[in-house]
């Protein structure tokens, strides 16, 4: 996608994607060097520059990278999809390409391991489930669980393919957590069908806060 452009800017974001070791300052430097070498191997010499801001999704933070893009033919953004779009909005005459595939809202569980823990459903159940989300962490997204497939504390998806570390049954985790809290009686209440209209089923979502507006 970018090979036809001679002057490229690689734009990083030093917050979430830096924590994920995917799009921060270091990863921008890695990709810049790797691209430079890849183009040379293909017989092309490119002018590649780098710029990283703290938050590519916030317009006020974008000024440095917008300025760095002024003499560039194209920008390759290592931000999440929100950052790529925020940058593209500020650069109407410069093509902006994504360098990453944004996957999920996750937690850094350990060094080199990120887990999807939130699906942004817009109607949070964590208060009912001991701080463990069944929407994102149960493979079947069950609102009342567990299902019959759990074995030795593990989700049955471990039987279908090797997953390291193995995926625990979220509903058994919820049970253990509520037991420890002395609130296991919460599970006696059947969760009603969820209103998914707060989630991505409703089309493009937005949050409006008049108190924050100018």
């Amino acid at each position, binding site marked *: 996608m970018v090979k036809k452009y001679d002057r490229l800017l690689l734009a990083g974001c030093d917050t979430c994607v830096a924590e994920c070791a995917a799009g921060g300052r270091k990863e921008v*430097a890695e990709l810049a060097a790797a691209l430079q070498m890849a183009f040379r191997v293909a017989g092309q010499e490119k002018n590649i520059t780098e710029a990283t801001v703290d938050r590519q999704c916030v317009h006020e933070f974008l000024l440095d990278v917008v300025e760095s893009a002024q003499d560039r033919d194209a920008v390759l953004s290592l931000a999440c999809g929100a950052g790529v779009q925020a940058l593209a909005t500020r650069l109407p005459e410069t093509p902006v390409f994504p360098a990453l595939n944004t996957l999920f809202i996750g937690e850094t569980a350990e060094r080199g391991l990120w887990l999807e823990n939130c699906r942004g459903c817009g109607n949070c159940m964590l208060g009912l489930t001991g701080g463990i989300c069944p929407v994102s962490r149960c493979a079947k997204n069950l609102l009342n669980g567990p299902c019959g497939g759990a074995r030795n504390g593990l989700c049955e998806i471990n039987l279908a393919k090797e997953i390291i570390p193995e995926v625990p049954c979220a509903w058994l985790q919820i049970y253990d957590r509520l037991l420890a809290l002395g609130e296991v009686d919460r599970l006696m209440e059947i969760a009603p069908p969820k209103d998914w209209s707060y989630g991505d089923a409703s089309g493009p979502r937005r949050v409006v806060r008049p108190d924050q507006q100018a």
Partner: protein
Amino acid sequence: MSQKITVVLLACRQAVPDPALLAIPLEQGGLKARVIPEPCSSKVEVFQMLRTLAGEADLLWVVGCPEAACQLVEGSFRMAKRVAHAQDYLGEIGLEPQRLGMAQIPADSREALTAMVGDILERARSLGANPGRTPR
């Protein structure tokens, strides 16, 4: 006019207290050598490896201690993982991953250093100039 092959070594100070012991035999072998002392091989980041290969090096070697002897406990272990990651990058972009090497050397071991120098000279002969580095 032919140019000398350039090798850059990022070397842990514990493993290689005297950088000249590396640079001299490599240069006697016909290479241009630069040894950069590091506090620990684990301090070498992937972007440094790639930048060095893109900028000046035909070959790059990261030198640390044996894993059990690393003063930072996990330093050599982490270095090996980063080198493997950077080698994957090189393969993906069409460069020989063997341009990036690593060695784990017992502190100041002449024998191990000599063996590593032999490996580097052999690798330089077989791979030649790096087509991905800055044009000379």
